[in-house]
C-alpha cells in the first residue's frame, strides 16, 4: 500500500572516510521536501567503521540515521550494498529515496530500483513535491540537455531519484541539532560476495583540479585555433587561474578532456568563471552556471552565454585578452612591489 510508505531517505555516500559532498547537498534538498510533506528526513549510512559519521548527517539536516556497519561494506560493491539498502527499505518503507548521481550512487540506485520494482529518475537537477498527491517531481535534462523533463512515479513506492552533484545546496551544519540513530545488522559473509575490490587507486594523474579552483578561465571554439587558445593559457597564468575548456575546444585538440566543463565534463562552482569565446550551449552551462561570478567575452552580442553572465564584454577575445593580460600584469606587479 502506497499509504504505508512514509519518510524521505538520503543515501549517505562515504568517500575517503567522509560523507560525500553530494550527500550533504541532498540532505539540504531533502530537508525542504520533508518539511513540505511533514515527514521525517533520514540518512542511510552503510560502510565499515562509519558510526562516527552519524553526527555530521544530523547536523546537516537528518532527523534519523539508519546505520549498517559491517566489514563487507568496507569498499563499495553492488551486492552487499544492495542487500543493506533492500533490507532497510523493506523494513521501514520510505516514500522517497535520493542518491547522488555519482558512479556508486547511480549503481546502487539502479540495483535497488530493480530489486524493489520501482521507478528511478536519473541525474535530476531539480526536485519538488506535489504535496496533495505526495508525488516527487524530479526534473532532469534529456536529449543532451536540450530539454528538461519532469519524471513522476505515481503508483510505486519508494519514489527514487539520483541527483547531480553541486546543484542542490547543503545546509550550514548546526551542531545543536539532535537526531536518532538506528543500527541494523547485515547477514552477509565475504564468501557470499562474487565481486572483490583488489585495489583502489586515487586520482591517476588527474592533472587538473577544476572542482576546487577559485578562478577558472574557460576558453571555447571562439579562440579560433590552437595558437589563439594560447591566450587563454597566458591569461590564466597571469592571474593564477585554472584552465577549462568547452567540449568543442577539447575535441579540436587544444587541451585534454580533464579540462572539459559541462554535462560530459566537470561541474564547477568557482568564485569567478571567465567564459571566453564560449557560446554558452546548455550542455556547457549546466556545468558552470552556479559559479559565484561569471564573466563572458564573446563577439556575438546574441550569444546565450550572456544570459548566464554576471558581466559581459562584447568584442573580439583576441584583441581584448592581450589588454586584459597587460592590465592584470600591471595590477599584480604593483601588489608585489607594495608588499616588498
Amino acid at each position, binding site marked *: 500500500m502506497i499509504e504505508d510508505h512514509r519518510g524521505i531517505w538520503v543515501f549517505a555516500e562515504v568517500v575517503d572516510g567522509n560523507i560525500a559532498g553530494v550527500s550533504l547537498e541532498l540532505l539540504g534538498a531533502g530537508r525542504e521536501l520533508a518539511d513540505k510533506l511533514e515527514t521525517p528526513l533520514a540518512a542511510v549510512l552503510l560502510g565499515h567503521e562509519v558510526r562516527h559519521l552519524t553526527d555530521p548527517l544530523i547536523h546537516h539536516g537528518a532527523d534519523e540515521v539508519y546505520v549498517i556497519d559491517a566489514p563487507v561494506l568496507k569498499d563499495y560493491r553492488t551486492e552487499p550494498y544492495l542487500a543493506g539498502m533492500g533490507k532497510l527499505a523493506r523494513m521501514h518503507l520510505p516514500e522517497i529515496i535520493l542518491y547522488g548521481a555519482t558512479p556508486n550512487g547511480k549503481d546502487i540506485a539502479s540495483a535497488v530500483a530493480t530489486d524493489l520494482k520501482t521507478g528511478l529518475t536519473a*541525474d535530476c537537477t531539480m526536485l519538488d513535491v506535489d504535496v496533495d498527491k505526495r508525488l516527487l517531481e524530479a526534473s532532469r535534462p534529456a536529449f543532451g540537455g536540450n530539454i528538461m523533463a519532469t519524471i513522476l512515479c505515481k503508483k510505486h513506492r519508494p519514489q527514487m531519484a539520483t541527483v547531480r552533484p553541486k546543484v542542490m545546496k547543503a545546509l550550514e551544519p548546526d551542531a545543536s541539532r539532535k537526531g536518532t540513530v538506528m543500527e541494523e545488522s547485515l547477514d552477509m559473509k565475504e564468501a557470499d560476495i562474487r565481486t572483490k575490490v583488489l585495489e583502489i587507486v586515487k586520482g591517476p594523474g588527474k592533472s587538473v583540479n577544476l572542482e576546487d579552483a577559485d578562478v577558472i578561465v574557460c576558453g571555447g571554439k571562439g579562440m579560433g585555433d590552437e595558437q589563439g587558445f594560447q591566450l587563454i593559457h597566458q591569461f590564466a597564468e597571469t592571474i593564477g587561474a585554472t584552465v577549462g575548456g568547452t567540449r568543442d575546444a577539447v575535441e579540436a585538440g587544444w587541451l585534454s578532456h580533464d579540462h572539459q566543463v559541462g554535462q560530459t565534463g566537470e561541474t564547477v562552482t568557482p568564485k569567478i568563471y571567465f567564459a571566453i569565446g564560449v557560446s554558452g550551449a546548455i550542455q556547457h552551462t549546466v556545468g558552470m552556471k552556479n559559479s559565484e561570478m561569471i564573466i563572458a567575452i564573446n563577439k556575438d552580442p546574441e550569444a546565450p552565454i550572456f*544570459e548566464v553572465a554576471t558581466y*559581459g564584454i562584447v568584442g573580439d577575445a583576441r584583441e581584448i585578452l592581450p589588454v586584459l593580460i597587460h592590465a592584470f600584469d600591471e595590477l599584480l606587479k604593483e601588489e608585489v612591489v607594495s608588499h616588498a
Partner: protein
Amino acid sequence: MHIVVCVKQVPDTKVIKINPKTNTLDRRGVPSIMNPYDAHAVQEAVRLKREYGGKVSVLSMGPPQAEAVIKKSIEIGADEGYLISDRAFAGADTLATSYALTKALEKISSASPIDMIFCGKHAIDGDTGQVGPGIASRLDIPPVTNITSITKVTKDYVELQRKLQDGYAHIRTTLPCLITIEKEINEIEYAPFPNMLKAVSCQPVVWNVDQLGEVDRKQLGLKGSPTVVGKMFAPPKQEGGHRLEGSPQEQVDQLLHVLQEKRHLFHKKGGAAV
C-alpha cells in the same frame, strides 16, 4: 567465451532541435545512430574474442529500423544479432526495458550459455545508465559499472578497472557477469572490408513478444513502467547580467574596477595570493 552486447539505436543528440513553442522534440531529419558507448562495448567484445576465442552476439530492442545498429555491430566484428521488436515494448522506462532485454538474454543463453554481458555506460538519449545494472539484478549476476579496462579474463573470473569519481578501483568478479563500458576503454577500429560485406547480408534474428517464451506482459512497455514523463520544458533561463560598454580598453577598465574587491583571488603563477 560467449559475450552478448546490448546495443541501442538513438537519435543523434548533437543535431536534435526542440520546438521552443511546444517544447517537443523535432525529430524530422534527425539521423539515428548506434549509441556511441555501445560501439565501444562491441569493439571491446571483439577484442576479447580475438584474444580468447569465442563468439560475440548483439541484442537490441527497438522498431524494425533498429536493425541498422545490429548491422553496424557486425561491421565492427560481432558474429550474430538479435532484435526484439513488438508494439508491446513501446514506451518502456528502464525497469521495463531491462525486463524485456533479460527475457531475450535468457532465450539466447538457453541455446548458447553467456559468459559476459556488455552494456554501454549510458545511452545518449535517455541518459540514465540504469538498464545494465537492472539486467544484472534480474539475472542475479554481479554488475560492474563504468569499466575503463578489462585486464584479465579466465574461465571463472575477470579483472577490470572501474572508474570512480576520483581514481579507479581494480576489481575481480566471477563469471557470468554484466559490465558497463566507458568510452576510454578503446578506440573504434576501421571496419575490415569482409565485415562490411557480412554486415550487408546479415539478417538479425527478430523476435516478437510471443516468441520470447514465458513473458509477463504487465511488465512490458508503458504498462510495465513505473515512471512517466510528466511534462517537458525548456531549461530555465537565467537572468542576464551587466553588459560592459566602450572600447576594449574601456571595457577592461570597467571589469578591473569590478574585480578590485576580488583581488585576493588572483595571484601570479608560482607566487602566493596577494
